[in-house]
């Protein structure tokens, strides 16, 4: 998915709160304000010069409807700002901001995500994502479903049980926030020495019915990667949104990642709804700091990674036709 000529879009800064297992002192606006302020400061951008703000968060996670409305005070939206929100991981908020920048009338955007999973029993809260008629009544929570996927992988001979012994490393209840600044063309070059250019970004979803999916493969990750132009050149580093070891195996397979040529940090839990955006930010940071020339970032959502987003970042923008 190439950029419109002359409007290459880049990530120019990233900031994240150190994830806390349980933050008992901060509400939404207080999670958002420090990360957005830091991301803007790193980019040397004044909040009044930001063209568009987009966030990702989840009411159910934080236990309060319209939570993202309260969070908006964290970006001090005065005078009133162009703003939007998706009830999805911040990675999808970044996608919306990327689309918005491609409309051509603005040059900068801020994306943020925040979440406080500690306020509930996360695996049970995630069970609210399930089809309320056919799946939810089965009484399975998200960890049980992940276990089903891990079992399917073992039965398919693609993983050993010992290999997956670290499964419980996975979903840790945690609270946090992250923010990214995006900019276009020459503005990006002014805000960062080595902008992380978005060479491609795409997301796809699979059927919700788990019995109709091949849980040992991530077809939507593969499809998103194809459309994002991820194949054809190995990235120097790939940051995958995998909470469990078996998810990492499935994603590496879908993305055709060769551990010999690509650095793949091990799976780790990050605050839900923030974790995907964090992958994008950390991948961009490797380009921003010059330690990688090409990076791939992945984000996932839904039971057994039903929906996936892939982003290809590069130290060089696409050559404009």
């Amino acid at each position, binding site marked *: 998915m190439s950029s419109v000529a002359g409007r290459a879009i880049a990530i120019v800064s990233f900031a994240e709160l150190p994830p806390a297992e349980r933050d008992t002192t901060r509400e939404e606006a207080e999670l958002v304000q420090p990360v957005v302020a830091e991301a803007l400061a790193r980019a040397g951008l004044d909040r009044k010069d930001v063209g568009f703000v987009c966030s990702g968060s989840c*009411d159910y996670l934080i236990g309060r409807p319209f939570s993202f409305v309260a969070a*908006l005070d964290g970006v001090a939206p*005065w005078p009133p700002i162009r703003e939007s929100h998706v009830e999805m991981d911040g990675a999808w908020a970044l996608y919306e901001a990327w*689309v918005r920048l491609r409309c051509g009338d603005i040059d900068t955007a801020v994306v943020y995500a925040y979440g406080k999973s500690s306020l509930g029993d996360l695996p049970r809260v995630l069970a609210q994502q399930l089809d309320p008629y056919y799946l939810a009544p089965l009484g399975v929570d998200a960890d049980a479903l992940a276990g089903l996927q891990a079992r399917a992988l073992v039965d398919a001979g693609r993983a050993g049980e010992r290999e997956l012994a670290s499964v419980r490393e996975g979903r840790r209840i945690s609270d946090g926030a992250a923010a990214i600044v995006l900019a276009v063309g020459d503005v990006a070059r002014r805000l960062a020495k080595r902008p992380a250019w978005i060479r491609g970004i795409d997301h796809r979803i699979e059927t919700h*019915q788990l019995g109709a999916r091949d849980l040992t493969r991530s077809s939507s990750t593969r499809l998103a990667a194809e459309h994002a132009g991820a194949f054809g050149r190995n990235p120097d580093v790939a940051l995958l949104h995998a909470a469990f070891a078996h998810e990492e195996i499935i994603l590496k397979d879908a993305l055709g990642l060769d551990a010999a040529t690509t650095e793949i940090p091990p799976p780790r839990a990050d605050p839900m709804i923030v974790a995907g955006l964090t992958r994008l930010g950390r991948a961009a940071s490797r380009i921003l700091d010059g330690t990688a020339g090409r990076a791939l970032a992945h984000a996932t959502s839904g039971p057994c990674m039903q929906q996936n987003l892939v982003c290809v970042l590069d130290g060089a923008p696409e050559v404009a036709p």
Partner: protein
Amino acid sequence: MNRCAIVGIGQTHHKAKRQDVSIAGLVHEAAARALADAEMTWKDIDAVVIGKAPDMFEGVMMPELYLADALGAVGKPILRVHTAGSVGGSTAIVAAQTVIAGVHKRVLTVAFEKQSESDAMWALSPKIPFQPQLTAGAGGYFAPLVRAYIRRSKAPDDVGVAVAVKDRVHAMRNPYAHLRIQGIDAKMVRDSPMLWDPIRYLETCPSSDGACAMVLTDDDGAKRSPRPPAWVHGLATRSEPVVFAGRDQVNPRAGRDCARDVFD
């Protein structure tokens, strides 16, 4: 920038309780009507953008996951927009922007609620820790602002009634509307119970189950439209803070700035 055209629309019958359909059935009904109106098929759609208000209204978290199949989105990008009360508009805006930006050529966009699955009034009146429960329902929140507006603008007391009558009369022309009240007039509205002064029962939005869908395309799609397409000429959004001394909720600056932007 590309142009964006609306080439098909579809609505469900809006009712207090659509007990004849699941949530998936509800959105599918609207989407299928929009595709039929556009004389297109599910296969023609590149991406889906859905939007709705808090998930507590149905009790399904992040419903794009559950609804992907019902909306023909398997193998496609699907986004779910949530901007609270403005979500119907902002969903269409996000969908249109994917066409304007040249990311997609044919987009299905759907907004919906199946509020009978929960109690919407209380779902949007949560008890927040350390705060007094100040409002019950959307009307409870807006009534003081409405009173302040009437006082400031010196609007006649019955201006809300007049608007309600206008809307309900127009609804008689839409077979899908929730409230189709034969013979509605100002007296009928004034005689209905007062809920939150000055907002009366018949001035209030009913709690509905319903969905509305549109098919948006670029110029190529517009050329193939069976009827004259409706072109999008302007889009704008503005947000302002929740807690801010400079805020005027009776005449919001965000509203004024947004209106100016959309016409410019």
